[in-house]
């Protein structure tokens, strides 16, 4: 199907101690992504998608406990020392966060932040780094890049700041870019531009990309594969077309149905998902989605469904009552 995985996440679990007890933010997740491919990770707030990306980047909070392996380009990131990790991050493993205002340093100019990255990782001299910075800003669609180098983040709009953050992330030609809700803080017309920019740069650089989002609309036309997370687990994972057309997991179906559709008639009641996600400090014995699932039966409440293979390649789901099979007719 594809070459050897560039990144493979194997049995990763993240535990966070809280005053209310242990919080299992990520619960034994296995994922992989090949060079040049795009993986979407979709889920609602608190589902563990951001903690998973932080586990990959080894940027977890100090108190967090991580188990499992994160194999990137032949090495296990969990075992690397700080110095080697630092060399890897920014160089071959880059990240773009949701809020560009907090990921850029407010007291340094755009130029300083870009040039610093290039000098640190690529060991370019000042002049070469500056030239490269101008090229990068132009590539991400920033007009008058020479002048922008002298500006501070607050002098730019949200969309422009996100472009700068992308330029910094791309500056060292990473093999993998993790984009964590890269457009959530932006307006729709700007969102489309930023997603196009990411897709274009990815193709040009043959870079692998993980897009983390709460919006199924963002991943639909822009990823090769999608993993849906709920309460810390991957509950369904499939090549993008299969996920939308042959979904097995009732949560995926419910999530898609709950999105207001632009071609629906006004005042059509939305098929909302009742209730809300379970308290992560009090894990359920059975399937985490079962209290909200309209198909759930007794087994779902007492036993955790394992992630199983569907008939089409690369498609997995964790459900005892999967959709689109003989096991169940819509209730």
């Amino acid at each position, binding site marked *: 199907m594809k070459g050897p995985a560039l990144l493979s996440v194997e049995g990763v679990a993240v535990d966070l101690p809280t005053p209310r007890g242990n919080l299992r933010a990520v619960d034994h997740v296995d994922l992989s992504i090949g060079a040049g491919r795009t993986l979407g990770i979709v889920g609602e707030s608190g589902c563990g998608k951001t903690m998973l990306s932080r586990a990959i980047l080894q940027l977890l909070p100090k108190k967090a406990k991580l188990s499992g392996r994160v194999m990137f380009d032949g090495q296990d990131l969990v075992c690397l020392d700080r110095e080697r990790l630092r060399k890897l991050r920014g160089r071959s493993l880059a990240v773009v966060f949701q809020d560009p205002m907090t990921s850029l340093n407010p007291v340094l100019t755009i130029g300083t932040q870009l040039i610093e990255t290039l000098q640190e990782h690529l060991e370019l001299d000042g002049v070469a780094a500056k030239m490269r910075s101008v090229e990068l800003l132009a590539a991400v669609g920033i007009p008058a890049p020479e002048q922008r180098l002298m500006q501070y983040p607050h002098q730019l709009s949200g969309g422009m700041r996100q472009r700068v953050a992308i330029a910094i992330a791309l500056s060292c030609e990473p093999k993998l870019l993790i984009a964590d809700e890269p457009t959530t803080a932006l307006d729709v017309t700007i969102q489309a531009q930023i997603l196009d920019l990411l897709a274009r740069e990815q193709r040009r650089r043959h870079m692998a990309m993980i897009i983390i989002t709460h919006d199924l609309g963002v991943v639909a036309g822009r990823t090769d594969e999608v993993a849906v997370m709920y309460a810390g687990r991957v509950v369904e994972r499939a090549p993008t077309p299969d996920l939308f057309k042959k979904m097995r997991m009732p949560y995926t179906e419910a999530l898609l149905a709950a999105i*207001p559709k632009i071609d629906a008639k006004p005042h059509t009641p939305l098929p909302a998902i009742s209730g*809300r996600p379970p308290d992560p400090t009090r894990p359920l014995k059975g399937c985490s989605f079962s209290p909200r699932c309209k198909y759930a039966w007794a087994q779902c409440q007492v036993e955790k469904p394992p992630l199983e293979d569907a008939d089409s390649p690369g498609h997995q789901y964790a459900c005892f009552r999967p959709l689109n099979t003989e096991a169940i007719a819509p209730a």
Partner: protein
Amino acid sequence: MMPSVPQPVSGDPLLRVENLVVEYPVGNKTVHAVSGVSLDIARGETLGLVGESGCGKSTLGRAVMQLRRAVSGKVLFDGQDLTAMQGDTLRRMRRRVQLIFQDPIASLNPRRRIGDIIAEPLVISGVKDAKKREQLVHDVLSAVGLDPHLVIGRLPHEFSGGQCQRICIARALVLNPEFIICDEPVSALDVSIRAQILNLLEEMKARYGLTLLFIAHDLAVVKAVSDRVAVMYLGRLCEVGPSEQLFAQPAHPYTALLIEAIPVPDPDVRPAESVAVGEPPSPIAPPSGCRFRTRCPRADQRCSDEMPELREVAPAQFAACHHPLIGAA
């Protein structure tokens, strides 16, 4: 003749905004947040107001409430001009108009119990009988789908975002208002919770006979609840029309751009390469003529010389454009 006439609605308008201008001073400059907006909202109607951040949609909502005083223009609520009212007269009027904000957690006082938060508007408006207040609080909490007995003694931090928004809706409803301004009521909520709140707003509208001004940046959300939609850009209205018609055949290029930019949750729909050229200009120095012209593919000299007025391009559909996508230019 055109500028001061809002787009008429069938039936009698509960709210009529005429030529409203709102400006903010910033240093020695001025932000032109709302520049001459006129619109009508009929009794029982939901008008959706969409636009990107900074377009003035929230300012417009606040100016209707008189939380921000207009520089000029009128806000006629049930025939009476709110901009001319002050003190007690205004406070009495305000009972009939309520606001729901984007961040439900931030709009609840973290140190007060839910029962007190919801009873507060009743206390202010002079409902002296504690038993009656309690009854009204119970009724409204049940209406928004919360169990009054479990809720009234607790503090806001014990609730999730979706539940807090239910509490905010209950607080807005407790005075039995006629008109509610919802300012991005679901933007801070997750997809699965968003649908619950949108459905709840629709139910409450029917149950309490409300008229709504629904402000949001998400077109699909706006369409789901609105009878008519108004599109705003840099302080001006671009287009107003019945929801379905406006989405099926947008007349203003900006409306078309917004519709195109919505990501569709269908892998067969390849996202069109975005046509959006650049970003909105600053409302401190808006472009001359049509404010959208700097990003518009159809702009020409006329667009920079002459400000387009709203005019009817199709039945009940109005657009402020010299080169609309439908109708004769």
